[in-house]
């Protein structure tokens, strides 16, 4: 057990004059307690007005991405005691419009995603009564790509996104590459079309913030590199 002070960045849209402020909550935290457990305990026992998104509690739904001690993480899979600090600051993710307390608008995230036509594009009809074949090696190219949970941690950590709200974002590039790399997909040009643009791929300056921020250990920067190569190939070819 340890007494931890949570310094939480709060914002109430009905009180614009007050703007953002920090409120402290003290909580006795035991081993195994996650930041989400702590936030829930604060909400349920101390202050019901504290607002944050959450759902699965197990790092798969992507609801509870927030900035914890300066780093974008999923609250549900961050152990409080592993942060090794008596004070834990919790803030909404940067770069997205604020909604309330730790809740931000995902609209920019969705806009970026839609730009890459995030679905399998095929021109050849699938075989009837059976699956398309894909070798284990071809399928292995999707590992590290299909696991994205759209939590938004990467794009929120990206300086290109801070500077340009129209920037498509690493989450969407990762998704684009998930399809471009898929042996079944026949729509590389369609996926890439929006990326060859001033809000697209070329605005990535390989700072690797997205890689650091990803709670699922995925690598959007590598995907961006591969997409850049693909674009160049298409231009030459």
């Amino acid at each position, binding site marked *: 057990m340890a007494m931890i002070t949570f310094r939480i960045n709060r914002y109430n849209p009905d009180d614009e004059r007050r703007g953002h402020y920090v409120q402290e909550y003290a909580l006795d935290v035991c081993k195994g307690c996650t930041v989400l457990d702590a936030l829930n305990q604060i909400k349920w026992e101390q202050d019901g007005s504290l607002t944050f998104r959450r*759902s699965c509690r197990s790092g798969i*739904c992507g609801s509870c991405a927030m900035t914890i001690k300066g780093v974008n993480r999923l609250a549900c899979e961050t152990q409080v005691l592993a942060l090794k600090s008596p004070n834990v600051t919790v803030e909404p993710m940067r770069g997205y419009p604020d909604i309330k307390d730790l809740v931000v608008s995902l609209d920019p995230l969705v806009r970026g995603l839609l730009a890459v036509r995030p*679905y399998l594009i095929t021109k050849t009809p699938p075989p009837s009564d059976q699956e398309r074949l894909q070798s284990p090696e071809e399928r292995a190219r999707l590992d590290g790509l*299909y696991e994205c949970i759209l939590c938004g941690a990467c794009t929120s950590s990206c300086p290109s996104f801070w500077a340009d709200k129209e920037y498509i974002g690493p989450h969407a590039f990762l998704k684009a590459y998930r399809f471009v790399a898929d042996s079944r997909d026949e729509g590389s040009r369609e996926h890439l079309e929006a990326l060859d643009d001033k809000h697209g791929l070329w605005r990535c300056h390989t700072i690797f913030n997205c890689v650091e921020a990803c709670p699922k250990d995925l690598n959007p920067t590598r995907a961006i590199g591969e997409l850049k190569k693909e674009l160049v190939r298409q231009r030459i070819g």
Partner: protein
Amino acid sequence: MTNFDPESIHDVKGVPVHSVHRHDVVIVGAGLAGMRAAVEASAEFDVAVLSKVFPTRSHSGGAQGGIAASLANEEEDHWEWHMFDTVKGSDYLGDQDAIEIMVKEAPVVVREFEHMGCPFSRTREGRIAQRKFGGHTKDFGKGGPILRACYAADRTGHALLHTLYEVCVHNRVRFYPEFFALSLIVRDGVCRGLVAWDVIGGGVHVFHAKAVLFGTGGYGQVYRITSNALANSGDGLSLSLRAGLPLEDMEFVQFHPTGLYQSGILVSEAARGEGGYLTNDKGERFMERYAPQKMELAPRDLVSRSIQTEINEGRGIGGGPYVHCDLRHLGADKIMKLLPQIHELAWKFLHVDCIKEPIPIQPTAHYSMGGIPVDIDCRVLIDGKSKPVAGFYAAGECACVSVHGGNRLGTNSLLEASLFGRRAGKAIVRFLRETRDFPELPSDAADAAIAEVERVLSAGGSESVGAIRTELKDKMSAGCGIFRDGGKLEKLAGELRGLEKRFRNIKIDDRSEKFNYDLLEAIELGHMFDFVELIVAGALKRQESRGAHSRTDFPDRDDEKWLRHTLAWKRGEKVEFDYKPVTITRFQPKTRTY
């Protein structure tokens, strides 16, 4: 597409005109059932999908191990074998006409997912890979476990859910993310739409529709230890009850054998499907005593009872309330390739490296076999038996077809949700082709919903919603868990009534309209009170042990009296019951051993 006719816009009292929406189909829930239906219906009609969370946050994504289909990609398999296993797994309470449809259509549904782009794992030949799962066997139970569960590593639910979202994006399905359903509008046996709360902006909205589909999922959050998401509060069940409709077989609650110790987070059955062992404090593979043939791959009800028995008799690890799931002998390669998420979860939540150490696990509330009674086309039945409510459909975990009967087999839920979602979509398309006009929208349609929100936002009592919910969860786990008996159930029923009384005297900290989870959690708790009463009352009535419903005071299955489905309604303060026969076609009930 719908012809827009301003003359026919109906005014709804208390709701601004711009908050009254109109779509041919309104689907509540963006999990596998809801989005699969949306894919089907959006080809021809205007479809809206409401979800209390952003679509890809739906809890279908939490499913790990696989989706069942007798593809026979890895070894011989037949739908008849899958059917036998499902019927036996259900402890003969599953309706065999519905089960036959499910197992026959399963290969089509799984291949369609592949065609949509789902990144299934593959066999050497490039086909969809399949693994073993509990209760799925060869040759009508005579052979060993069979490779039937189609998978994408141990992230199958995630892969399927995101694929469906992608196809919905492609089909331009209209999403209303973070809209929370408040009430269903059913008048004179006709469903006319629903009322919902806009979580982000605040405010009551009315959705006027020709057809409504509920794919609202389960209610694991009424138990203390659960694999379910915080969003799984069974809202759809309560809304259906409040519209005067019954629920079926609510006493059948599945406890998954392997939840991570303390958090209850799911450790997929794939862990055992790939060869993992369950061991007790003495290091024994105790399943030898309970299911000598199928061992760890017996169905979930049996494995959970076995684990609980070990714990109750003092053979939990160190005498504690958990046992071990041991994967060490599988080796690092197999674990990291086939079970990477389990490795990640055990590490992140228990700091256990399952390559080197066994995982502490305990049974965890996982799935509802019961739900809103529907026919094989997912039409909700007003009498629970044969009379449909015009325009109201339900599919997936919130519905009871019933394909799972008393106990669901692993990998049959992703199958049921997507397959019956698809069937619901097709049935809705047929219905809409014959239905030109929108049903009349009563002007008082939103009254009850508005009153409920106002009641919570102005609550001036002293009781904490969080504290009451915690008590409800603790009491449900203690009184209506894996093992039940009449005395404990009666005590529990009384305690729940006491808690519900306290619930009428709640306080609220957040009185604002925008993104107010304080409000939502209070409404969700009200939903929980509605249907837990039916779980407990149903469990008390059913004086036998069948599937996941295990009465220590009635330890045997009683086909004479209880080979029938429970139907329950809420009428005022009272629960009323009716029963209906089980549909039996190919397989007569037999003693169930594994």
